[in-house]
């Protein structure tokens, strides 16, 4: 199965240098469109989505990450993103266990 990138044009370009196909998307409609296409294709195993656009559709993102088995949805940083104080991953774990690990 293949890996697919959706989101920031810079990430799409970068990954295309190593042969990973991508779909540049910046607006909510574009992302949903790209995501629908990706989900419809049976050959996509991992979808990488850049952090700047995941904020546009958090609800759907959460559902996709927790739900179904394939494809896996993974957030990747953008050129602009800084080290966040607390990643969404750490936050998720903290909520689930009640302590910070």
């Amino acid at each position: 199965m293949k890996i697919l990138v959706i989101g920031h044009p810079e990430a799409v370009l970068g990954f295309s240098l190593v042969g990973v196909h991508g779909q540049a998307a910046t607006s909510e409609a574009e992302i949903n469109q790209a995501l629908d296409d990706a989900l419809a294709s049976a050959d996509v195993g991992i979808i990488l989505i850049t952090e700047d656009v995941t904020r546009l559709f958090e609800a759907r993102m959460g559902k996709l990450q927790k739900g179904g088995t394939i494809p896996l949805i993974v957030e990747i940083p953008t050129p602009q993103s800084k080290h966040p104080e607390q990643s969404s991953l750490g936050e998720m774990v903290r909520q689930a266990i009640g302590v910070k690990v």
Partner: protein
Amino acid sequence: MSRLDIPPTRSNLLQIRQELQFAREGYEILDKKREVLTSELIRVAHDAEELQTRMRDLMSSAYHILGQARLIMGQENLEWAALAVNKTVDVQIQSRSIMGVSLPRIKARGEPPEMPYSLGNTTAALDEASAAFREVLDNLPELSELVTSVWRLAGELRKTQRRVNALQYIFIPDYEETVAFIESALEEREREETFRLKLLKNRPSNPAQSESA
């Protein structure tokens, strides 16, 4: 906490006791599930966070190098070079199950070609950018596996936690209270019954008989 609204009869007592027993067993099982999920989550979360941090560094330097390549070659040539790359990593996703949560296990096969674009009109900066993204790509399967595992484990853990709490703090206490209520009601009725019998026994059994005696 509130007692269930059912009449205090012996058959209800038996039924409620049985249900309470069932709820306690369920609680024990869910509690064990919670423990297993928690330990698994802690293990995975640690690795995931570490890898995510490393990935951040890798990617930010990859973007930086890509930016430099763009300065040297120009956006258009960069895109042309990228178009030439067509072979890449193939992933195979399997899943394993922990306590009913399916966690992905990813195997990567193949890798991007060493020298995909022509050397003639590209620069060393592009090679560096390509190498940087290749390193990112190498780490991607593992990152996807870990991050997804954390999401699913955490989601399932929260669900389990809610159920455990519901059983522990609402369901079981309610049932315990109901059992206690029915038991005391039945005992009370029994005492009344005994007392009534005693009263009847002490009373002259037949007024006509006692008169003739």
